[in-house]
């Protein structure tokens, strides 16, 4: 038996609610989180695509960056166009290291008097240290420790939310952010999420989080959803999971995330690893992240080796499983660039046997974002 004391898991402000709803709790990124509720992963996934699901993502890091020139200062750490990001708008971007490896992926919102940043739970301590070390003294890094983060996702999410605010949500387009009162509590709401569906993410004071969650769960469309379905939803949407599909060894170009590199930034550089990114943009990379659909029904999971039809290794799967809405196995992974073309035939080596598969475009399920 180990004598090392295990560091206790942290809990979110919704911990008691999860347990009262019958959640199966698992350790995730140092937190005790619900992996599923009574309905189970398949049902929760399908419910989110059909109606609305409420996710607790309070483990993620919420940080405010304040100070003169915050956009330009943050641009020195990421390849995203932030100086042209208008107030009330948000953008997906990447913290890079000097080799253009991805330290984390994050959402950045221009809130006017500050920038609001949401980072991955597993990376947040390192991200905050990185921001503090690299941003100039004129910019303060303020973690929001006393806030919860809820995601309400699905085609009926906004209709359910509208019953609890006077704010006209039809004016809040995809990747826009606004402060509004929800059930009497001031919240920061963004039209965003990580499921491929319409929906919102709600930053709320920790002390008000359970009441808000209960209010939303009382709506007929809304069911609680765990991390299991969150993973299958984001995989079908073709979205990367940090630490699996992207990490410090992958660059934005290899990861097929060049859309997240601003046009001006490509020309000017001025971010960590800019020379690597610019060279890869002009000369290409040896490997690229692609979508993969195995033929048949057997899922091909993370770590599965990919080969060409002759059996030569060409890459590996980084996320894979069963896509409940896609109705079959779906995966993403890295392959040698010569095989990274739509329709390319490859094999996934599952339990020692080559399973025929095809390189496909992502997402696996059509996106359902509200663009106004």
């Amino acid at each position, binding site marked *: 038996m180990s004598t090392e004391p295990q560091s206790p898991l942290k809990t979110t402000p919704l911990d008691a609610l999860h347990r009262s709803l019958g959640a199966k709790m698992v350790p995730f990124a140092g937190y005790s989180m619900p992996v*599923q509720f009574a309905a189970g*992963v*398949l049902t929760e996934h399908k419910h989110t695509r059909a109606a609305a699901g409420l996710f607790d993502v309070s483990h993620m890091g919420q940080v405010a960056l304040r100070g003169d020139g915050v956009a330009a200062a943050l641009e020195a750490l990421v390849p995203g166009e932030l100086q042209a990001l208008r107030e009330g708008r948000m953008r997906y971007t990447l913290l890079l290291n000097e080799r253009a490896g991805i330290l984390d992926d994050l959402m950045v919102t221009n809130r006017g008097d500050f920038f609001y940043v949401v980072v991955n739970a597993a990376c947040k301590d390192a991200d905050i240290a990185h921001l503090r070390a690299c941003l100039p003294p004129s910019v303060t890094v303020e973690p929001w420790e006393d806030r919860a983060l809820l995601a309400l996702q699905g085609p009926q999410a906004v209709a359910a939310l509208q019953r609890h605010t006077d704010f006209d949500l039809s004016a809040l387009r995809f990747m826009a952010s606004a402060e509004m009162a929800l059930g009497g509590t001031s919240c920061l709401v963004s039209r965003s999420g990580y499921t491929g569906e319409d929906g919102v993410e709600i930053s709320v004071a920790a002390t008000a989080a359970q009441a808000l969650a209960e209010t939303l769960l009382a709506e007929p469309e809304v069911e609680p959803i765990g991390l*299991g379905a969150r993973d299958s939803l984001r995989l079908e949407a073709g979205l990367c999971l940090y630490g699996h599909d992207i990490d410090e060894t992958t660059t934005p170009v290899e990861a097929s995330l060049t859309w997240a590199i601003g046009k001006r930034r490509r020309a000017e550089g001025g971010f960590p690893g800019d020379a690597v990114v610019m060279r890869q943009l002009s000369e290409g990379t040896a490997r690229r992240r692609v979508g993969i659909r195995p033929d048949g029904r057997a*899922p091909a*999971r993370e770590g599965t080796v990919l080969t060409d039809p002759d059996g030569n290794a060409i890459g590996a799967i980084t996320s894979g*499983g*069963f896509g409940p809405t896609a109705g079959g*196995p779906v995966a993403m992974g890295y392959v040698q660039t010569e095989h990274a073309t739509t329709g390319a035939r490859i094999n996934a080596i599952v339990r020692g046997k080559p399973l025929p598969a095809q390189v496909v475009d992502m997402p696996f399920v059509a996106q359902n974002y509200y663009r106004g």
Partner: protein
Amino acid sequence: MSKVWFSEDHEWIRVDGDIGAVGISNFAQEQLGDVVFVEVPEVGKTFGKGDEAAVVESVKAASEIYSPVSGEIVEVNETLADEPTRINDDAEGAGWFFKIKLADATELDDLMDADAYKTFAKDHG
């Protein structure tokens, strides 16, 4: 009259004469969650006791199914290919994986009866 035994790997075998139908327990099904894929062996293949004979994959992970006895596969449940959730719906009935012709019925003595398994599952849950 058939009788059912359970293994420590949470398989069950329901024996009728010298043929045993094999599946996973309801306890195992609950632990796995929603089943999305099943791979059954080919008819005619032979397995030793404890050999990996089938695969079941849930939304969470892949798990091997070990043959609780030695013998030859005489029938497989073809319906699982299209309806893997049968295992969630009826793990110890319609969710059987394969039928095996027992090579040595004394191997059953190493398995647990339903009551013993119930206690075992409670302690290993």
